[in-house]
């Protein structure tokens, strides 16, 4: 379980996160939803320590991450995988090297063992025969899958996904969402996902937190999100013709 307690974060006087407290459960896909610019990415980067919080605490299974220095954080970092918005694959490495990289930096396994593990992870995300391709030669969906394979190669306890299906078509989005959910359940990972995509919300929203202008406005799950009486949330949920049409049929 990951716990963020009273998180504040501002940039040059611009208050981006205002007293956000939130919990993410193990073996579940925990979604953070909200409009573009509401602070989802900043919240995620505060939790993983890419940004330092101004105030507040972050616990990874009771370990106080926010009070650790770079060296002390290394242990928890090696239990983390993160899927960045654009994939963030290393341009200078091909697919298999990207997936092997975290293992080769932190384990003492032989090159063959590492390669075997990387190939297993690539197979797990249904990517085969792409080992020698470079990131520039991959489609958006393939990049995301390589990034997932790289993130799970180290057997993470915590997985963070920032807009995992931004820029993907609905079908590919769905494949990625379900892949993340399967992996989460299979390995009992604590998974946190940023998204503004209602399709993902209805597909994999085990737990949902709605962030609006840097504040936590609503918490729930995919079964009760359509019936809330929170006006800001409803504006977000029923922003499109499609969801409004759906509402009428209910």
């Amino acid at each position, binding site marked *: 379980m990951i716990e963020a307690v009273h998180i504040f974060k501002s940039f040059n006087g611009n208050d981006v996160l205002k007293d956000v407290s939130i919990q993410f459960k193990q073996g579940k896909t925990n979604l953070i939803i909200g409009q573009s610019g509401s602070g989802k990415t900043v919240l995620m980067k505060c939790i993983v320590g*890419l940004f330092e919080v101004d105030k507040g605490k972050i616990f990874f299974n009771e370990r106080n991450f926010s009070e650790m220095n770079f060296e002390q954080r290394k242990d928890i*970092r090696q239990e983390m995988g993160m899927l*960045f918005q654009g994939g963030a694959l290393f341009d200078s490495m091909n697919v298999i090297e990207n997936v092997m*990289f975290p293992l080769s*930096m932190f384990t003492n396994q032989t090159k063959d063992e590492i390669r075997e593990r990387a190939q297993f992870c690539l197979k797990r995300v249904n990517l085969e025969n792409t080992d020698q391709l470079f990131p520039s030669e991959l489609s958006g969906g393939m990049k995301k899958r390589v990034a997932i394979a790289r993130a799970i190669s180290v057997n993470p306890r915590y997985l*963070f996904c920032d807009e995992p299906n931004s820029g993907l078509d609905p079908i590919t989005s769905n494949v990625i969402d379900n892949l993340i959910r399967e992996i989460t359940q299979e390995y009992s990972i604590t998974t946190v996902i940023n998204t503004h995509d209602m399709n993902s919300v209805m597909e994999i929203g085990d737990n949902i937190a709605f962030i609006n202008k840097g504040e936590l406005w609503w918490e729930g799950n995919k079964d009760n999100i359509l019936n809330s009486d929170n006006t800001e949330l409803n504006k977000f949920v029923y922003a499109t013709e499609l969801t409004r049409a759906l509402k009428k049929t209910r």
Partner: protein
Amino acid sequence: MLGITFFDQFGEYIMLLRKVFTKPQKRKVFFVNLIQEIDKIGISSLWIVAFISVFIGAVATIQTAFNIDSPLMPTWSIGFTVRQSMILEFCPTIISLILAGKVGSSIASELGSMRITEQIDALEIMGINSANFLILPKIVASVIINPFLITMSMFLSILGGWLAGVLTGFVTTPNYIDGLQIDFHPYDVFYSLIKTIFFAFLISSISSYKGYHISGGALEVGKASTKAVVTSSIFIILFNLILTQLLLS
């Protein structure tokens, strides 16, 4: 809003260097990266350095010949002048400025695009000190390879001067060689290489800083690489004055 002052940037630069100069996570990976950087920074600059050196040496000979067109000047003047100007100033300083343009912009744009595509964040998430992992090999490679480039430049510019002198008939081979040997202090070469090492450090560290610390979009990458070249050039010129004063006085 307040602009970022020179002192803020200097502070940020020093903090970055403190992150850079730590023990690499894996020694073997560091050496692999170092070899790659030596190739990217050094080997790929061989041609441009060779080309410029030969031609500037040739021009130095021709200009000297025109300017000392007096029967009173000793015949060795040309070789002497070319040697002194190339070894003391042209090779270490001007070639370093050219490398600041070529290498500095490529370092800044490489790191800048890794920053905006979140590749640097991806390293940090894995628990890797990204500054150490990415920048240390670049600085070490520059400090190792630039003295070789500058030494080569010294030979080639003097060779270019000889070729031009002999082909145009301004100087004979024995006279040119006489000039090269007169009043030669090996310390001059040493002085020159010390400057080169300082300049190599300035180019690689300043350009890394400019690239590593960008935020925003692709436009920023271009700006950062321009700033890297301008700032490293200014510091090369400043340190040239300081080092010349310190080492030759």
